[in-house]
């Protein structure tokens, strides 16, 4: 069933291959090949050693500076950030949802542009900007996660509004329901599962983000990780890495279980 390729098709292939080869040529020349550090092997061995022989006194000692407390704070940053952004995203998503298929839709276009602009700010930069406003610490992390997530959640929410089933809405309209009743009884129940599922998915991503924002001083487990890396405390680095991996696996498992229950 293979289509016979026209002459033009063959040229297209040739052009594609030439383009790809020149892209790689350009890329390889742009990255200076430097030998990796001599200590690379030793450092990674120490980190692995730290992972498998954790320093138990660091994992929990009740001082608030231990690994478990830091991981809990990381989760709190992710939770609060996602929660705030889920609320802010709702009006944005209604703004950005293209509810009819006209080719130009001013309201939806403006909404979509706004969300794209929010997504353009990398989370790390937002964190730095918020640190300048509220000082270093977890609160700056919450604000960064909360602000950045709006870009993605607003997009996901608006897509689920676009894909929703309008029949229940029409049924209530046909019986003479008011606009508010229509929203409360038909629109909301139709989109709520999709909204919750998207929020849970974003929470998974936020946990990952929250665990690195400490690198720039926005609280969470990234802060001790950065200290450990700077002081070349490899075994501590290993323990913190292990903690982050376990936390992420746990949250991913919990979230995907809840999302499966929603559907």
């Amino acid at each position, binding site marked *: 069933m293979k289509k016979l390729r026209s002459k033009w098709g063959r040229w297209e292939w040739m052009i594609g291959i030439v383009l790809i080869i020149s892209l790689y040529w350009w890329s390889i020349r742009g*990255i200076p090949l430097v030998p990796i550090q001599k200590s690379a092997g030793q450092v990674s061995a120490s980190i692995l050693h730290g992972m498998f022989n954790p320093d138990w006194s660091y994992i929990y000692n009740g001082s608030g500076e231990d690994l478990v407390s830091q991981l809990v704070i990381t989760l709190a940053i992710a939770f609060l950030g996602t929660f705030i952004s889920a609320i802010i995203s709702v009006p944005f998503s209604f703004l950005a949802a293209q509810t009819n298929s006209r080719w130009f839709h001013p309201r939806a276009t403006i909404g979509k542009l706004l969300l794209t602009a929010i997504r353009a700010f*990398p989370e790390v930069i937002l964190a730095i900007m*918020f640190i300048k406003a509220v000082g270093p610490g977890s609160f700056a992390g919450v604000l960064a996660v909360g602000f950045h997530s709006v870009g993605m959640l607003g997009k996901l929410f608006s897509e689920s509004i676009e894909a929703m089933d309008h029949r229940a809405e029409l049924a209530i309209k046909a019986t003479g329901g008011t606009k508010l009743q229509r929203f409360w009884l038909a629109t909301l129940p139709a989109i709520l599962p999709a909204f919750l599922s998207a929020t849970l998915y974003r929470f998974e991503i936020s946990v990952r983000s929250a665990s690195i924002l400490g690198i720039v001083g926005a609280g969470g487990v990234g802060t001790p990780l950065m200290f450990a890396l700077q002081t070349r405390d490899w075994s501590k680095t290993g323990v913190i890495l292990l903690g982050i*991996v376990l936390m992420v696996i746990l949250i991913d498992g919990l979230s995907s279980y809840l999302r499966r229950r929603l559907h």
Partner: protein
Amino acid sequence: MQVPQLSFWKRYHVLGISVTLLLVLLTVISAQLTGVDVGAFAKNSPQFLVILKQMQQPDWNYLSQIQKPLAQTIQMAVLGTTLGTILAVPFAFLAARNIVKNWWGRSLVRLGLSLIRTLPNLLLAALFVAIFGIGPMTGMITLAIFSFGMVSKLFYEIIETIDMGPVYALQTTGASLLQTIRIAMLPQLAGRFASDILYALEINVRASTVLGYLGAGGIGLDLQQSLDQFAYPQTAVIIIAIFVVVLIIDLISNLTRRHLQ
């Protein structure tokens, strides 16, 4: 006639109310843990607005200085994605249900792959800067590992959905595993693989723009310098440049993907 009754649970929305209460409780605890201080935010938000205001006058002359790091960012992403993909292909086949019938072997591979996926790319960058030293090479390695985790999952999910008819046909003729993959599977896979590689490239271009912040090469280094020197008009130029590059890459990638299908 009996009127149908809602059960107690449904009638009084027990589940909904308890979930709401739980969320409120978690919010309060989180707010306490993270030291949320709305007053401070309200008091200092003018300062945040000052930053945004300074960003409104981008320093366009700075654009000539960031062309090279911006190019390096894309180069890192291209090479990192390629290396990661090459590494991912054999592991994707090992993790696919229709290739490896052994549950234990498959699960072991999948466990390894999902462990790699748990680490966010900035964390990988921080780690690799410590291990390999600073520079764009480290950025490339970071992106390679990061895309390895992502691409291998995308690939094995594709492999599991292929039509096994041609595969069985070849197997009955006594073809080896590699021959089966090459003749019966690759033609089904190539287009969708290419589409997912482009998707990974999009994500990597976005990711590579901040890697330099930790010393892993690319535009992130200039970003860090401009932020450290409070040179927000320069920061604005970098953000706009990143935005434009990401948009262009997304556009090219979307067009190519549509062409592939």
